[in-house]
C-alpha cells in the first residue's frame, strides 16, 4: 500500500519520525516528490493489524505534525 502525505499538513520530519517509530511493524520506503511525502508500506508483520495499519499510521503522523514545528 502507498500513502501520499501533503507537505502542507504533514511535515517530512513528522513522516520520517513516524516511519522510524513504526519500522518494527512493517517495511517502509520513503520519497519526497513535488510537495508530497510518499510512503510505501509492505510486509506488515501482524496480520491483525493489517486492516487498520494505514489509518493508525496516518493518525500517528498527524499527531506528530501537531507537535513538531
Amino acid at each position, binding site marked *: 500500500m502507498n500513502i501520499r502525505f501533503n507537505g502542507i499538513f504533514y511535515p517530512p520530519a513528522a513522516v520520517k519520525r513516524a516511519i522510524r517509530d513504526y519500522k518494527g511493524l512493517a517495511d517502509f520506503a520513503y520519497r519526497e516528490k513535488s510537495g508530497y511525502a510518499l510512503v510505501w508500506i509492505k510486509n506488515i508483520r501482524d496480520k491483525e493489524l493489517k486492516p487498520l495499519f494505514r489509518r493508525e499510521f496516518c493518525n500517528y503522523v*498527524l499527531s506528530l505534525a*501537531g507537535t513538531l514545528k
Partner: protein
Amino acid sequence: MKKNNGFVIELDKECYPKEAVIATCCQFLANSYIFLEEKDDIRVTLTPKNGIAIKNLKEKFKEELLNNTLRYNISQRNKDIRDYIVRAALFGVQSRAGADDLLFSGFQDGSASDWKDDPLGIAIPWEEKQVKKKGRVAK
C-alpha cells in the same frame, strides 16, 4: 459528503488556517481516523473508530474548528504584545527601549513620533499657565 462509514468535510482554506485545522484534528484523533488532503479546498476525511458513535461528530468537529480558528486569530493578533511581555519578563529593563515602538506601532499614518507634540498646550501644568497669565496681567 459521506464515505465508508465516515465523512469528508471540505473547508475553505482562506477561512480556516491550517494550524487551526491540524489542532482540531489532533483533538479528534482518539475518536476517529483522520486524513488531510488539499486540492482547491482542505479535505478532511473523518472515520469514527469502532464503538464510537458517529452522531454529531461532524457538528462537533466544525464547532471545535471554529473555536480553534478564533484562538489562532487572537494569538496572531496579540503576538507582538505577548512577545513584548515575555521579553520584558525575561530581560527586564533591556527591552524597554523598544516599548514605545511597539505601543505606537498601531499608528499607520506615521504619527508615532508626533505624539509628544503639544500644539494645544494640554501638557503644560496648571501652575505654569497661571504664572503666565498673572505675568501678563502684572505687565
